[in-house]
């Protein structure tokens, strides 16, 4: 199945295809290459030389120190890793329960309840900004870690539930019946049978939702004000002035999501079908 060619091409056609792709591939890599070059420069040097001029020295250490001294990026990366972990694990847990209930347990009007939970993904996120912001101010959740975490859990539930439910629909009912006859409780059927079978969809759900929370900007800048608890995208979006240091910060910030992509690549055929939120 791997690398099957669509149309039989002769040698010339093959070379043509690879050449065109190489040209576009190079264009696509240019921002990365320029960022790489730029990240080595000094602030003054960056502002006075062309993008493609090679740096006089490798200024990474100074730039890394600058980020530490003049911004909160490192602390924010820690914050975001924590928020995303809580968001992805929490939502996966509640989504597991809901998906199990909606596919296996005796619940009337399953389609209605499914739509209630799924409705969270249909509307634009701007709709939730004002009410949640105001409610958080009233409840004392504004500018707290807890507030952001609960919000991330809630917002990741619909998608996670959707994927898990689809997977659970494919699990044979006979298995459930057999386990029930053996005296297994509903929860232990979920925990001992369904969860071990769902490793692939669970990992896809976990990784996509982790990446979503980590990359999220709008709620991060709205629900949090204090620098020490800001998520990383909110912090880095205000990083101005020193461009080379900013490019280094961008690279460091992106490490977690790049690792996730490499991991997800294995389960990719499953993953790509549902990535929109």
């Amino acid at each position: 199945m791997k690398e099957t060619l669509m149309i039989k091409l002769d040698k010339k056609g093959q070379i043509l295809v690879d050449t065109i792709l190489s040209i576009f591939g190079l264009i696509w890599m240019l921002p990365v290459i320029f960022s790489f070059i730029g990240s080595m420069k000094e602030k003054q040097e960056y502002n006075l030389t062309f993008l493609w001029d090679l740096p006089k020295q490798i200024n990474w250490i100074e730039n890394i120190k600058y980020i530490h001294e003049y911004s909160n990026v490192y602390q924010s990366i820690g914050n975001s890793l924590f928020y995303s972990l809580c968001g992805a694990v929490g939502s996966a847990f509640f989504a597991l329960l809901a998906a199990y209930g909606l596919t296996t347990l005796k619940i009337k009007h399953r389609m209605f309840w499914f739509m209630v939970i799924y409705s969270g993904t249909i509307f634009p996120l701007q709709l939730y900004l004002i009410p949640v912001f105001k409610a958080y101010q009233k409840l004392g959740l504004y500018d707290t870690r807890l507030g952001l975490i609960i919000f991330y859990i809630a917002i990741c539930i619909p998608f996670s539930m959707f994927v898990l439910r689809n997977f659970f629909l494919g699990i044979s009912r006979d298995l459930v019946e057999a386990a029930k006859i053996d005296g297994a409780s509903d929860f232990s059927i979920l925990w001992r049978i369904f969860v071990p079978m769902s490793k692939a969809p669970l990992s896809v759900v976990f990784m996509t939702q982790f990446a979503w929370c980590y990359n999220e900007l709008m709620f991060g800048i709205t629900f949090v004000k204090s620098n020490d608890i800001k998520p990383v995208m909110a912090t880095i979006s205000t990083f101005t002035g020193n461009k080379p240091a900013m490019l280094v910060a961008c690279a460091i910030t992106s490490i977690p999501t790049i690792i996730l992509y490499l991991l997800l690549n294995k389960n990719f055929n499953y993953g790509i079908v549902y990535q929109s939120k």
Partner: protein
Amino acid sequence: MNKGNSIKNFLISKKDYLYILPAVILITAFFISSIVFTIYLSFYSWDGFSDKVFVGFENYKKLFTDSNFQISVMNTCLWVVLSLVISLILPLFFAILIVNSTRSSLFKNIFYFPSTLSSTVGGLIMTALLSMYGIPQVFGLLGYDSLVKDWLSIPYVNTIVMIFMGTWQGIGMNMLLFIAGLRNLDRSPIESAQIDGASKMTLFRKVILPALKPTTIVVVLMSLVNNFKVFDNIWVMTKGGPYRSSETLALTMYTETFVRNNYGGGAAVAVILTLVIIIVSYFNLKNTFKSNEG
């Protein structure tokens, strides 16, 4: 006694609902109630602190006579239409080449890589590339000195620039969908057409393109919905400026509410954005459930 028993029985018979309860409560508390509150708020004048005053459709009327809002609508349409065309043609083009390439996974990863970065990081990188000694200087070296300026600070040009910069990150997912679609195509019609001596162009137009229709529909609908909501890129690159010239509806909603403290007006923008997206999403959902329910 009897009554207590029946309550207990009732609870036991409902215990299955405990599984969906946490999800339903969170969704209702955060999202469903928010929708109701935002719609309610769009009929009030509110600065976020003092008492709300009922104004009926005043917020909406004001919006439609506000030139900033009109610009925002224009920009949103521009984003949606231009991005749709670009995010349909380029990914399809790349996908077709990639499935025919000898190094398909290498090229796939190169074109997908920008999509693994957050749009915030993407926006920052693009801002760095567009600085005075960056991309504008290419045109300077070619002799077009008038083009050497900060493109992001020129009204209306900045939107176009951002749309083109956005494609760097925007095509990855669509390309993967097209590759998957192409790999899953039924091979026999293609092979028989080739045996019949059809040229590659005819083969593409008459056989491959029609067979890709389901994938194309998914890509179109997804791009539409996502581009109506674009926020992060613009926020990082121009914050909607200068003079609110590069705002889209998502940004206008944010600025009206949190910068200008016009909560009612912001809510009204959110409602309008929602109506538009619901109309597009309706087709999207119909399509999703058609393919997933089976």
